[in-house]
């Protein structure tokens, strides 16, 4: 595991390293707090006078709420407040823009506290605050809710049929590109179509055509820290929220919209966050906690348990996908067609758009058609999960590609190299790629020791898969204060889930010619830094890093101007280079000039903002060896290598970590993770015992190959890293299983019962 620069250095390359700080591996700034247990995560926050909340959740997957009687709960000693949806303002029909996407407020509000219907088991119905958690929970159980139970709709295809029970009476099918809406209530919220070229001609030109149907199960981000929110609605109407979130400003907007208060009256203080992966953007607890706090007059903390997290937050959708692809005799793709239905959960909003744009994103295909549907079912309202929508799609496409390779008798790597998307390739949705690095990741895999080492054992197999994610830019802000001793405090609004404080500080340090350790980065609340979009979409190192770079430019300009004034020379004669301010007859290091300027003038404060939109999409290719137990269908991973184009790796250790962690989430999705529902729509595995995320004993070391194809759209060439690595694993595993034991799996997860079923079918 080494970056290209490190390899060059090891090989004794003459080329001087391009950067001094970027590409090194400093200890993260928040490290000591996190290994000593001092870092304060969501549930570690204690506010003076705080009481504890509990949520009453629906036992039914689909029901009308006929009445709610809270009197017994209110009468229980120790209970301080009870809330229902009646305590939240009427949301009307407003659609709110929340940075990374639009939300129908009525749906968001009803998802926090159900209004007229419950749409999934675990849907929040009422909330209680009491002196301690035990009393709050007992009180919640005393709330009497009368339900009219309705038949649950759990299957995406059944939900689309015209006789399916309808979840949301206000939902009509919207044609994504024309805005036209259907005239009947339906579960199909959105319909998307992309077309390119002449698909009939494309298939007519094909020598081989493969068409397959795929299903994938609902899966969860599985962050180890459950959701928690602590809220004080102060006597003056100011609301403070302490919460672990991917976006403090997003929480602020959601609270302001849901509670009908001005933005400036809401302050969101980020706690350290114990994982998110897309699942900690939407609010689930803070609105109820706010209402309870207002009633009780003290801060209220509500914490989910694991069952709540799985049943009532935002997993990523299950899906049905049909893929048809054709190749000519030379192995060139001639046409591709996809029909995709994604489960939105209780309210509309699955990542079908991204799924439809990603489904053929790795290939240069002249003719294509993609059709996508966003479909409501009685499951929790889905939310983003690492490259949302892309993994489902890649599993389907890459499996069909593997079958085409078999028909062609072509090495899967060679097939991909022949058909790979590259600069200028036009996707089916019409957009062309800038400089991207899919080919480089394929070559990195082809040149890897892993690829060159053949498998020898029985029932062993090898598989390969590629994946894509767009990455994002969006808004970020950074403020920098130079202290009187020359040390630097850097304030940012991007909550740090995986070491981004350090990645941002390193870019600032690089720009200033300082060391990473000279900078003290801090993630601060919404009153203390400029607007910053969510930590998501693999945007933070790119966008907030760029804001830090801009702050450095601002600081350098100020230092140059003030040094010129101090030295009484023309500013044009002063420059800042490599950590020094240089005048006509002297050169002073940053620390010295900082001290001098601090004692002779105004405070040195700089700012940087960014809203750039050239995040440079990223590709990854994974290679996996498995051994399948032919008698039980169990899949063991023998070896795993993941190559990914990261543009420029700022902190290679954390880049590797993103690749390894994402790959392992993809492995879990591929092999064992699923929401297992009974016929009543009740999830039967809502715990970490039976919702089986990989343990360390299920895995080998994960070799991460960092490929660096610098992004021309960033000062240091950064591309986002975090999302892509979850995309290829299920497909790579499917190909490896087929290679090992000769059965194809068209449904996720490829759990032992499914693999064994196919093996037994093949035998008979």
């Amino acid at each position, binding site marked *: 595991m080494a970056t290209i620069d490190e390899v060059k250095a090891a090989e004794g390359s003459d080329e001087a390293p391009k950067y001094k700080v970027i590409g090194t591996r400093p200890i993260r700034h928040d490290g*000591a707090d996190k290994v000593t247990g001092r*870092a304060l*995560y969501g549930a570690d926050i204690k506010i003076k006078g705080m009481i504890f909340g509990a949520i009453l959740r629906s036992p039914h997957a689909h029901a009308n709420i006929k009445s709610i009687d809270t009197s017994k709960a209110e009468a229980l000693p120790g209970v301080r407040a009870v809330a229902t949806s009646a305590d939240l303002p009427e949301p009307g029909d407003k659609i709110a823009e929340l940075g990374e996407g639009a939300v129908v407020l009525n749906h968001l509000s009803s998802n926090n506290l159900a209004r007229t219907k419950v749409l999934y088991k675990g849907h929040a119905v009422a909330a209680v605050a009491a002196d301690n958690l035990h009393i709050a929970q007992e009180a919640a159980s005393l709330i009497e809710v009368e339900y009219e139970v309705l038949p649950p709709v759990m299957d995406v295809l059944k939900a689309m049929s015209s006789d399916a029970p309808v979840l949301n009476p206000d939902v009509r099918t919207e044609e994504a590109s024309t805005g036209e809406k259907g005239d009947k209530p339906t579960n199909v919220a959105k319909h998307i179509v992309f077309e390119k070229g002449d698909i009939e001609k494309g298939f007519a030109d094909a020598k081989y055509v493969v068409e397959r149907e795929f299903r994938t199960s609902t899966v969860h981000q599985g962050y*180890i820290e459950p959701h928690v929110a602590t809220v004080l609605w102060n006597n003056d109407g100011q609301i403070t929220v302490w919460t672990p979130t991917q976006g403090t400003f997003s929480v602020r907007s959601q609270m302001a919209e849901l509670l009908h208060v001005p933005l400036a009256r809401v302050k969101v203080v980020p706690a350290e966050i114990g994982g998110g992966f897309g699942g900690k953007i939407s609010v689930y607890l803070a609105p109820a906690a706010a209402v309870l706090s207002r009633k009780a007059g003290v801060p209220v903390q509500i914490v989910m348990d694991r069952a709540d997290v799985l049943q009532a937050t935002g997993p990523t959708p299950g899906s049905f996908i049909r893929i048809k692809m054709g190749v000519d005799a030379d192995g060139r793709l001639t046409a591709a067609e996809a029909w995709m239905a994604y489960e939105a959960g209780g309210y509309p909003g699955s990542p079908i758009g991204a799924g439809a744009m990603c489904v053929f994103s790795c290939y240069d295909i002249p003719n294509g058609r993609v059709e996508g549907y966003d479909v409501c079912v009685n499951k929790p309202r889905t939310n983003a999960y690492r490259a949302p929508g892309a993994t489902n799609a890649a599993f389907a496409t890459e499996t069909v590609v593997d079958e085409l390779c078999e028909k062609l008798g072509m090495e899967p790597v060679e097939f991909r190299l022949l058909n790979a998307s590259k600069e200028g390739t036009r996707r089916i949705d019409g957009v062309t790629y800038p400089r991207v690095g899919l080919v480089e990741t394929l070559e990195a895999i082809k040149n890897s020791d892993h690829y060159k080492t053949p498998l020898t054992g029985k029932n062993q197999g090898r598989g390969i898969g590629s994946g894509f994610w767009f990455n994002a830019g969006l808004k970020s802000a950074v403020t920098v204060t130079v202290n009187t001793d020359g040390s630097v405090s850097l304030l940012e609004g991007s909550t740090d*889930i995986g070491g981004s404080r350090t990645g941002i500080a390193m870019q600032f340090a690089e720009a200033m010619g300082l060391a990473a350790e000279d900078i003290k980065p801090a993630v601060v609340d919404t009153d203390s830094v400029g607007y910053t979009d969510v930590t998501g979409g693999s945007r933070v190192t790119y966008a907030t890093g760029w804001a830090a770079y801009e702050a450095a430019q601002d600081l350098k300009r100020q230092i140059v101007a003030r040094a010129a004034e101090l030295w009484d020379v023309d500013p044009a004669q002063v420059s800042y280079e490599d950590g020094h301010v240089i005048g006509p007859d002297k050169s002073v290091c940053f620390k010295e000039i900082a001290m001098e300027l601090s004692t002779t003038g105004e405070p040195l404060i700089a700012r940087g903002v960014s809203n750039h939109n050239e995040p440079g999409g990223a590709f990854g290719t994974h290679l996996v060896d498995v051994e399948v137990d032919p008698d039980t269908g169990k899949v063991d991973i023998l070896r795993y290598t993941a190559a990914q184009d990261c543009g420029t790796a700022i902190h290679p250790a954390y880049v590797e*970590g993103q690749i390894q*962690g994402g790959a*392992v*989430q993809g492995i879990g999705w591929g092999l064992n993770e699923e929401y297992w529902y009974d016929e009543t729509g009740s999830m039967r595995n809502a715990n970490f015992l039976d919702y089986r995320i990989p343990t360390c004993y299920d895995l080998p070391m*994960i070799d991460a190959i960092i490929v660096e194809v610098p992004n021309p759209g960033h000062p240091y060439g950064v591309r986002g890293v975090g999302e892509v690595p979850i995309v290829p694993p299920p497909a790579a595993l499917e190909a490896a299983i087929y290679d090992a034991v000769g059965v194809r799996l068209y449904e996720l997860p490829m759990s032992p019962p499914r693999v064994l079923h196919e093996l037994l079918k093949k035998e008979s």
Partner: protein
Amino acid sequence: MAKKRIVTATINGREEEFLCQPRQTLLEILRNTLNLTGAKEGCSNGNCGACSVIIDGRAVNSCMILGVEAEGANIETIEGLAPGDGLDPLQQAFLENAALQCGICTPGYIMSAKAFLDENPNPTEEEIRFSMAGNLCRCTGYDKIVRAIQQAAETRAEQSASCAKETV
């Protein structure tokens, strides 16, 4: 309502007394009564290991122990691990290997690893993975965690070798 009990236990080397209802778990007592919030609640049923602490030399899930059961116990938590200055070899190794991303599983991981290395100072990768399977991490894919534990084992061996030399 059941009466609160007075429980006496040694926590990180100091004798502590606390008041405890029978229904309070040790984790709740550590976090809410004693303000030792290093141990985290991730799953509440013994499957994630985020609440791991060491009792009488053995790693346990503090979410599945009643506070009243701790009477007379010797409890070690992440807060007591680092020496007065600097860090424990496990803490240092986690930092040097970037073995944490979000960090929520880290205190539990380190405490379990400590109990494990105390029993098995020179483990194979297989033994580390087997024994640490009760500690879930969702960020890292475990690669760097396993390497950190390997490195800590080496450092501990070096330290005890140099200790032994000094005693001689």
